[in-house]
């Protein structure tokens, strides 16, 4: 069973900062933000745009705890026993916060009839609850006026409207025919309701822009409600962050021109959901840039942004799918293709020497969400958030395989207001590696095309191309290579380089379902360790199917999974062995130097 987190003092010293596996050797390859920085950045951005009177704001993680513990049925997905004890760890904290219940009526959620409380958390709610938190009657009034304008006669309950999974038993007076207008019928279809995670993007004016499932046009009323919730709380100089209702969590990201909403029943923490919304928001910026977005909405408040985003739905869908299975997103780190140092150096040199072009900012060679090498202009770093957008663009666009492409792309962390021009071309038909050359000069296509030809010649000459193809074909390494029998799987992130490594999924995580469960466990472990109100250094938990160990130092983050019967000393011993193995293999698993043009 779960134990209290143990803070180790002895092991910490073993790897002094700078000498841990995968630590960068000279200058950084990729600019790094720690997870805390990102949480901070999210918080700062939200506050700055929405709380003009400078009221002190609660920390994202703090209030998170309150909500995390306020839902009694909160467990890690798929009957994992890790949770109940863990929640008690933080319970002392949550008593400090007065939870404000927006709706206190116990409504049946979905099919289960458990009691659920709807908790809304806003930016300033903690400090001045009376002033800032709307009472339920206000919201009800607002919503019923909203629905009245739609022509439906009945009053709407908060739960019912903003929660796709709520059942409509509370309004017996409404006949089925009246209720089942095509839109509502659609929203109440089991298939739509039972989706694990819904993502919506809407404009400040409430115009639908994107939804993960279904057709935006049929969900207009739902978008209206989301906009109403946001603007209602904004009218009291506050901003909504999330609502917890039973199994569902509604997370809001309010930016200057857009509102993004995640509705999830995946048990992910709101910080993680917020991070995902930020990725989605960055994806929008990467297509349009912040300045263009501002120009459009300043000119035409109710512009239908779908016109400009048409054809990019696939990028969003792909991003959301990948975020649900790839730990690199919540780790804010990049995975590198395992490659011998000599090969990687040759590749980097071939690129650096043959792409000496003025105004070329980055040359990136990637394959299937993994970085092969990155050559950059001096003084310019690439942020993992930006790199993930590039990975996503390439993996979502089959048409790059057919021809050389030339497209503008905005990297929000690099410059959210301008485009870089990207030359995109796969190296070879037989090889899944894609070369991107990013420049600020829009007339460089033919120059860069020529560079690519020369790079290809060099790579073929040095047999690097063959080595890359071979490594791609072989895929990720097996855990057995580390020679630690009790270890099942791990994630290791080197914080200074923002790179991470993990072995391939093997038994017992070969089935999609088990892989998903493991992913959620990692997410949960990550969340608990980085929880702002109570950050942990080491966390050891025993579940029904596995034992988890998380260890964070200033140099690295390690999340390891063992069999359920592994004891604490054995686990500690194993990860020390693992660290030694990673140290030995670091040249292959990480990119430790940072070539420039």
């Amino acid at each position, binding site marked *: 069973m779960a134990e209290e987190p143990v803070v180790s003092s002895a092991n910490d010293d073993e790897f002094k900062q700078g000498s841990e596996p995968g630590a960068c050797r000279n200058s950084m390859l990729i600019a790094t933000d720690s997870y805390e920085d990102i949480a901070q950045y999210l918080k700062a951005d939200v506050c700055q745009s929405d709380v003009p009177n400078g009221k002190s704001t609660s920390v994202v993680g703090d209030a998170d705890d309150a909500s995390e513990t306020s839902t009694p049925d909160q467990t890690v997905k798929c009957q994992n026993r890790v949770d109940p004890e863990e929640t008690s760890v933080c319970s002392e904290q949550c008593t400090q916060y007065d939870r404000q219940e927006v709706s206190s009526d116990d409504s049946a959620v979905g099919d289960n009839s458990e009691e659920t409380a709807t908790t809304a958390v806003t930016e300033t709610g903690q400090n001045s609850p009376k002033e800032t938190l709307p009472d339920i009657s206000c919201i009800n009034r607002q919503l019923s006026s909203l629905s009245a304008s739609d022509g439906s006669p009945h009053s709407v309950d908060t739960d019912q409207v903003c929660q796709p999974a709520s059942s409509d038993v509370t309004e017996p007076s409404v006949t089925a025919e009246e209720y089942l207008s095509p839109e509502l019928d659609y929203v109440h279809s089991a298939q739509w309701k039972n989706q694990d995670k819904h993502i919506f993007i809407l404009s400040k004016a409430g115009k639908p822009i994107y939804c993960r499932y279904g057709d935006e046009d049929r969900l207009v009323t739902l978008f209206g409600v989301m906009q109403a919730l946001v603007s209602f709380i904004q009218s009291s100089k506050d901003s909504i962050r999330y609502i917890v209702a039973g199994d569902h969590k509604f997370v809001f990201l309010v930016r200057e021109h857009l509102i993004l909403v995640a509705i999830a029943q995946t048990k992910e923490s709101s910080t993680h959901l917020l991070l995902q919304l930020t990725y989605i928001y960055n994806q929008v910026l990467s*297509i*349009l840039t912040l300045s263009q977005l501002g120009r459009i909405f300043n000119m035409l408040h109710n512009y239908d942004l779908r*016109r*400009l*985003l*048409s*054809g*990019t739905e*696939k990028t969003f869908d792909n991003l959301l799918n990948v975020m649900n299975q790839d730990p690199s997103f919540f780790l804010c780190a990049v995975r590198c293709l395992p490659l011998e140092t000599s090969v990687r150096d040759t590749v980097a040199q071939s690129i650096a020497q043959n792409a000496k072009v003025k*105004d070329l*900012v980055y040359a990136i060679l990637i394959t299937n969400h993994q970085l092969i090498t990155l050559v950059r*202009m001096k003084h*310019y770093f690439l942020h993992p958030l930006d790199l993930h957008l590039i990975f996503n*663009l390439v993996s979502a*666009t*089959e*048409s*790059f395989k*057919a*021809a*050389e*492409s*030339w*497209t*503008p792309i905005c990297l929000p962390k*690099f*410059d959210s*207001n*301008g485009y*870089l021009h*990207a030359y995109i071309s796969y190296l070879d038909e037989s090889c899944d590696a894609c070369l991107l050359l990013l420049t*600020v*000069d*829009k*007339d460089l*296509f033919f120059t860069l*095309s020529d560079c690519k030809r020369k790079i290809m010649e060099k790579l073929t000459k040095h047999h690097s191309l063959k080595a890359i193809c071979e490594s791609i074909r072989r895929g990720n390494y097996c855990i057995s290579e580390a020679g630690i029998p009790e270890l099942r799987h791990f994630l290791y992130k080197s914080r200074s380089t923002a790179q991470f490594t993990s072995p391939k999924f093997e038994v017992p995580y070969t089935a999609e379902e088990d892989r998903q469960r493991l992913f959620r466990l990692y997410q949960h472990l990550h969340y608990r360790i980085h929880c702002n109100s109570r950050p942990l250094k080491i966390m050891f938990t025993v579940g029904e199917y596995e034992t988890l160990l998380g260890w964070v130092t200033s140099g690295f983050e390690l999340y390891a999974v063992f069999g359920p019967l592994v004891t604490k000393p054995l686990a500690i011993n194993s990860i020390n062995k693992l660290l030694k193995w990673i140290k030995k293999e670091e040249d292959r698993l990480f990119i430790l130097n940072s070539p420039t043009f």
Partner: protein
Amino acid sequence: MAVIEIKLCLLGDSGVGKSSIVHRFVYDSFRPYMENTIGAAFLTKTMIVEGRTYKFQIWDTAGQEKYRALAPMYYRGAAAAIIVYDITRESSFHAVKLWLAELKRHASPNIVLAIAGNKNDLEDLREVSYQEAQDCAKSHGAIMIETSAKSAINVASLFVEIGRRLSNLDMTMSLPSSNSNALNVNQRTGQDVKGRRKCCGF
């Protein structure tokens, strides 16, 4: 033998089949579910017609509205432009007229224009009559041809016709210089002025 290099670009609404036409021409293949083009794709194809070797350098642009502002980058240096519409979609033909107007104003005056009515195999769903398109083309002095990338109708002849017209044009304008074996018929109207941006305001 002189190689005649022809730089051309394809324009037109999203989903009319620009990429499909190019794929049929370059690879002689057809994908029923073609993806959206991102930005623009560049392809080349060399073919020999009537003893002349043509090297086509093709810019296949994306049709979405957000890429609209980038179009000048591709048609400015081009010797020919193919404006594609979908014969089963009236609105896409309307866009052809807008493109013609834009090219008239901003492209090189000697640019060879071609209008391609794609999806010619879907006769049952036709919304744009052949005559209407023909009249429109005539008034602009453009080549007009109905194609089908799916059934490979008229795709090659579209490009051949452009090549023929360009080389005739060139013959009448100037004789090829004897010492060069590559004859360039790109009708560049002077290098476009480059406003070099500094590295993104840093």
